[in-house]
Each structure stands twice: as C-alpha cells, then as structure tokens.
C-alpha cells in the first residue's frame, strides 16, 4: 500500500525556522549502527498492558537474548491511548530518546514517520524464514512506496462478534448474511429484551466504522484506492453509504444512549455489553474477543462468542465478500542498532513465537504455519471469511490518514445524533484538508 502524501512545500519564509529544526532532523542520517559483534542495548515500546500480553513480550525478549547474548532489550509498556503522542515526541527528539523497536499502527502515521526519516527500511533485512511464513499481502499494509518499514505480527480483520446464546434465545437459526436479515434479527433480539447491536459512540471511531463498512459494500475497490490519493469523497457511493447508515439507524439497532457509551472501558462499554449479554453483537476488529473476554464477569473468554462477516448490502459496487481490517506491526527506528533490531523483528514472526502471540492476545497470527494452531471457532470463522474475501481493505481511517479519519469520526457522530446530514460527512472530509 503506498500512501501518497501531499508534497511538503517549502516556503521561503519558513527557511529560517526550519533551519533550526533541521538540525534535529539531521540526526536521522547520522550513523549510529553499532558494530555487529559489540554489546547492543535496545528499547522496545509496546501497548501490551494486559497480563498475558506483557508476559509474552517478556518471554520473547528473554529467549531472544539467550540466542543473542550480546543483545539486551529493555521493554517499556505504554498505555495504548498515550502511545502515539509519546512516540511522536520521542521520535522527534531522535537518537537516544527514540525507542529502537515500537508498535507501528501503519497508514498515514507510518507514512509521516517515513517522510521524516524516523523509520528504518527493513525490506532487505527480511529473513528467508519470514518471507516463507508471512504472505506478501500481509506486508502490503506495512509498506510505504513499496518499501517495508514494519513487521506485521497479526491479522485483525473486522466483522460481527455475537453471542450465540442470545441468538438462540431469540430464535435466530443462523447468523444473517444480508442487511434485510440483520434488520429482521434485530427485531427478534429486541423481543427478548436485549439491545441487538452495541456501539461505542463516545469514542466515535466505532460509530465511524459502521460508515466504513457500508462504504466497503457501496464503493468499488478502485474507488476506495483512488480516494486514498485524492482524499475527496466525490464518488456517489460515499453518499449512498451515508444513506444506508442513516436508514439503518432509523430501525434503532443500537443500545439506548449509544453516543455516551465508550468502546472498551468497563461493563457499560459496548464490548462490556456484549460480554455481559446485555447486547447481542458488535461490529469490530479482531481484537474484540480479547477485549470482550477481559470484561466478562469472570474475566474469561465469552464461551458462546461467535463471528460472522459484515452483511451484504444490495446494489453496492463493492464485492459482497470484501473484508476490512488492519494489523499490528513493529518498526525499527532509524537510529536502532542493526542488524540486531531487524533480527528481533524477524524473530517476532517465527512460528513458535507467533504461536505464543496467538495464545497471549487471542488473535490470528500473521505467520501462516502458526495459524494452524488457532482453534477458537470464532477465529476459525474469521480466517475462513478472510480467505474467501477477494480483497481486504485497510480500515478507512488508517488508509486515509488521521486528518480525514478525525473528520469522519466527527461527522458520523453528528449524523447518528440526528444533528448532521449525509452531505455533512462528504463536506467534512472534503474540508478536512483546510485544517492540515
């Protein structure tokens, strides 16, 4: 995936100020690569704050250090919501402050880091084992202009996560495949006194995801890709997606007060409602089983959790089986000692490490050999749907960058609150460039 970034125009007036700052950026090119055999210390930043996730990284680092006695890796766990801001500041400060290995979210953020010379190009450092185990498609999301700047570690496509028990109670024999079926099932679920669908509107992005999913069905793959270049919602499919969402919202599928519900915090959040059988399903990325599991009364995975892909919308230009998702990756900073850093990234996707990764995070590992050990039925259903999909689109907010994603968040919330319009979404995206 190549993210076209607007050219950085250098205004003459800026030269003075830029000169001062360039001195900081210049550090980026200075060589800090330590000698291959000397002792090497690296820092690793991850957002794995939960018990098993933290343990996974501790164990992985320990076994890597054992195999590479001259390497020491210091792990720092950063709260997910704080990570991006801290990382940006640390990378800006450059050598000495920037972490050597860190969680990479990809998309526009990764492209901006590449442009600022903050990431190491690992295209030529991928081991043969890595190339054999990780499909080129999985790398696509970690690439900028055809070069690889991050190692993907998992596959996080999205879809519906639902409670099989509640579906059974409501008399739903099999998960819906079309929008009409979904709406009919919602009515049945309301009949047994649960909210059909939970959505974390307070955090905005879960609501915006609904719009993305309708856009995935309404817009062709070509339109989605072309929009990544133009960042304009000119195609009529964007309006159709908005109309779909508006019509769907009119059937009151979401829990009451969904705009004041957060996505992941506590039993009252959308994931918490599913975890406690207060809502029957949630449209979310593949990190959801882990989140739902942490919010059940006994903090164990939800036993009756199931998965089905986004329903089909009649008349759309998009492939009815297309899927949307993302993946977590890890990058080396431009100042990280090589080859130690890329060695570690290669190590992260080796089969035994990937099997541990799957166990720790309850997600589909990126390594194809490690995928064989995945046994949860919902993850198997997810892998089946992903393999059937003719194409997997990156989350639109990642694909179109922070600025457009933020505008979409705001305008979709406005729409769902009854204060905006479909045209408001289109305008917000088209106007977002004015602010940045």
């Amino acid at each position, binding site marked *: 995936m190549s993210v076209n970034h607007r050219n950085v*125009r250098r205004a003459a007036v800026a030269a003075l*100020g830029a000169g001062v700052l360039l001195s900081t*950026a210049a550090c980026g090119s200075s060589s800090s690569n330590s000698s291959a055999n000397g002792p090497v210390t690296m820092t690793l930043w991850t957002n794995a704050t939960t018990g098993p996730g933290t343990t996974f990284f501790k164990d992985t680092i320990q076994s890597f250090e054992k195999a590479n006695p001259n390497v020491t890796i210091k792990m720092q766990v950063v709260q997910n919501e704080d990570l991006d801001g801290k990382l940006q500041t640390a990378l800006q400060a450059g050598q000495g402050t920037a972490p050597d290995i860190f969680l990479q979210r990809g998309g526009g953020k990764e492209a901006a880091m590449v442009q600022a010379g903050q990431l190491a190009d690992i295209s030529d450092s991928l081991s043969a084992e890595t190339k054999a185990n990780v499909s080129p498609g999985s790398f696509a999301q970690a690439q900028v202009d055809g070069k690889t700047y991050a190692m993907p570690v998992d596959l996080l496509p999205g879809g519906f996560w639902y409670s099989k028990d509640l579906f059974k109670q409501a008399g739903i024999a099999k998960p819906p495949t079309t929008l009409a079926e979904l709406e009919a099932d919602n009515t049945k679920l309301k009949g047994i006194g649960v909210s059909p669908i939970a959505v974390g509107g307070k955090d*905005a992005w879960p609501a915006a995801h609904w719009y993305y999913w309708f856009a995935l069905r309404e817009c062709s793959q070509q339109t989605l890709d072309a929009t990544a270049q133009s960042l304009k919602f000119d195609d009529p499919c964007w309006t159709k997606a908005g109309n779909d969402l508006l019509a769907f919202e009119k059937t009151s599928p979401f829990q009451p*007060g969904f705009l*004041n519900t957060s996505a992941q915090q506590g039993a009252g959040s959308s994931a918490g409602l599913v975890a406690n059988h207060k809502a029957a399903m949630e449209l979310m990325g593949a990190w959801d089983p882990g989140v739902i599991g942490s919010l059940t009364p006994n903090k164990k995975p939800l036993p009756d959790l199931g998965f089905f892909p986004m329903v089909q919308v009649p008349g759309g230009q998009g492939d009815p089986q297309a899927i949307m998702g993302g993946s977590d990756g890890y990058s080396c900073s431009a100042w990280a000692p090589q080859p130690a850093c890329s060695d570690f990234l290669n190590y992260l996707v080796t089969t035994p490490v990937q099997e541990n990764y799957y166990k720790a995070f309850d997600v589909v590992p990126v390594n194809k050999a490690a995928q064989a050990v995945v046994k949860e039925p919902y993850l198997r259903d997810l892998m089946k749907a992903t393999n059937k999909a003719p194409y997997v689109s990156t989350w639109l907010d990642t694909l179109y960058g922070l600025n457009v994603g*933020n505008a979409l968040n705001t305008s979709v919330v406005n729409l769902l*609150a009854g204060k905006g319009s479909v045209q408001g979404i289109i305008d917000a995206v088209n106007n977002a460039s004015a*602010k*940045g």
Partner: protein
Amino acid sequence: MSESQVSTTAESLDRVSDAGDGRATSPSPARRRPRRRKASWRERVEISLLSGPAIIIFLTFVILPVGMAAYYGFFDWHGYGPATDFVGLRNYKVILSDPEFRAAVRHNAEIVVLSLLIQGPIAVLLALLLNRKMRGRSLIRVLVFAPWVVSEVIAGTGWSLMLPVQGAVNALLTKMQIFGEVKIDWLGNPDLALWTLMGILTWKYIGFAVILLMAGLQNIPEELSEAAGVDGASYWQIQRHITLPLLGPTIRIWAFLSIIGALQLFDLVYIIWGQYVAGVAGTSTMATYMVLNGRNAGNYGYGNAVAVVIFLISLIVALGYQRFVLRRDMVGALTEGA
C-alpha cells in the same frame, strides 16, 4: 495615593520586573527613579538566587511554549519532522470561520455566565450559613468541600458512569417510584446536556467559592453588624447592606477565577462526553476543540493556532476584567509593594 490610580496591568508588571532587577520598588517609578539607590552586590545575589529558579521555570514552561505555539500556528505541520509548510494566517482564517469553533466559543461564554449566575448566589448563601454556629456545620462543610478536593478525572469518570440512560442516576430515580420509569438522556440530549454540565460544575467547584467567601467573611469586623443590629437592622438587612458590600472584593476575585476556569474548561467535558460527542451535545469548549482538531487530527500546526486564539481570548478577558472590575480592589494590594 493619587499616583496609584494608574494601575493598568502593564504598569504593575513593570513594577514587578523592577523588583526583579533588585531595585527599590515604588508606586511611581518615573518619579522615584533618580533617587533610587544602588542595590548592594549582596542584595543582588540574594534576589537572583531567590527569584532565579522561578523565573527560569516560568520562561521555560510558560513563555517559551507560548512563543513556540505562535510559531507553529503559522505552519501546516503534522508533528513529524520539522515544520516547513508555511501557510501564513490560513489556520487563523479557518479557525474563525469554522462553525464548530464558534459553537465552542458560544458554549464557553454560556458556561462563564451560567457559572457566575448559578454558583455566585449559592456560594454566598452557603458561606453565610456555614459562618453561623450551628449543629452539623462540620458535616455540611465536608459535603460542600469534598467534590472540590476530588480530582477532575475521578469526578468525571464517576459521573460518566452514573449519567448514561442505563446508568445509576436514572435507576435511582426509577426506584423512587415517583416519576415512573426514568429514561432521561442526561448527556446526549442537546437541550439538557449543558445543564447537566452546569450541575456537575456547580457540584465540583462550589466548595472553592465557599472557601474563598468564608475567608472573606472572617475579615469583616463583627462590630459593624453588631452596631447595625443595635440600630434595629434585621438579619437580612445586615447581610444586604453590610456583609455583601464588604465581601465585594472577595466575590470579584472569585468571579475572576471562575471566568478563567470556565474559559479553559477541558477535563470534565473531555472525560464525561468525549471530544466527539461534546460537539453534538452542545458542551464542546475551545479546549476540547483544540484537542480534537489538533492532536486527534494530527494537525499540530492548526492545533497550535487554536491554542493561540484561546490564549488571546483568555488574555483579553483577563486584562479587561482587571482593568474594569478588579482595579478598585487592586489599589494598594498590588501597587504598594514596598
């Protein structure tokens, strides 16, 4: 004291910096300057040792960031690499023409006015009440002050858990069995959300107002009310004609702090509504707008420009208030330093 009449803030700041230079301070530097004696070497060392750290911290963490925000505000900058895309005043034009920002300013203005109108009278009455000797006074004091001591994040999280449609507040109202099943959308209904916010703000900050006013009441000589009582004034007449006027300086200082606090309101809204929903609920503030369109959108240049606009609005309001309202109270307090 006639020279003290010229007490604009700029001049009082001049005097402060005079003091910082280690020269003798006086209400009228122009007249006194020729007679100023030179501070001894020892005095200079002492003053720079005492004031140095504070000045360095102030310059580094207040003045420098303001300057940098002003600088970045002229760029289209996303926070990666150096800022190079100079856009002149474009950010400011977009800010001032953005209906969302105007709405945020309007919400801030509403919060400023409503805070004064709601909290002021309640605080005065509570302070008068708590100033009297009576049973349960300590308990009421604790109840009034406790919310103010609790951190904004904790208070905000608590309210955000209690106020949703399916939250504890509605459940409590339902259990009271007076209103039937209560399903009030305290947070999401735009007609209600601002009042919910005002309720929370009043609950949270009334304790601070009461503390200030009670301190002010301590300074009012009891002889005055005793004398008025002897002359036959009723309790309310005494409060109206003696206590309130003498409490004036305290009330004006509290109003100043309340206005500044309302202009910069961020944490409670950010936590209870989240910056996306605050806009539709009608509780967004200039500060939540800044975070939403600056940090969240990755438009750091634009966000810095918003920060500058907030700074200027707050500065103008603060200076105007000092000039027109606080001046009479400031006379003698700030100007007679020596």
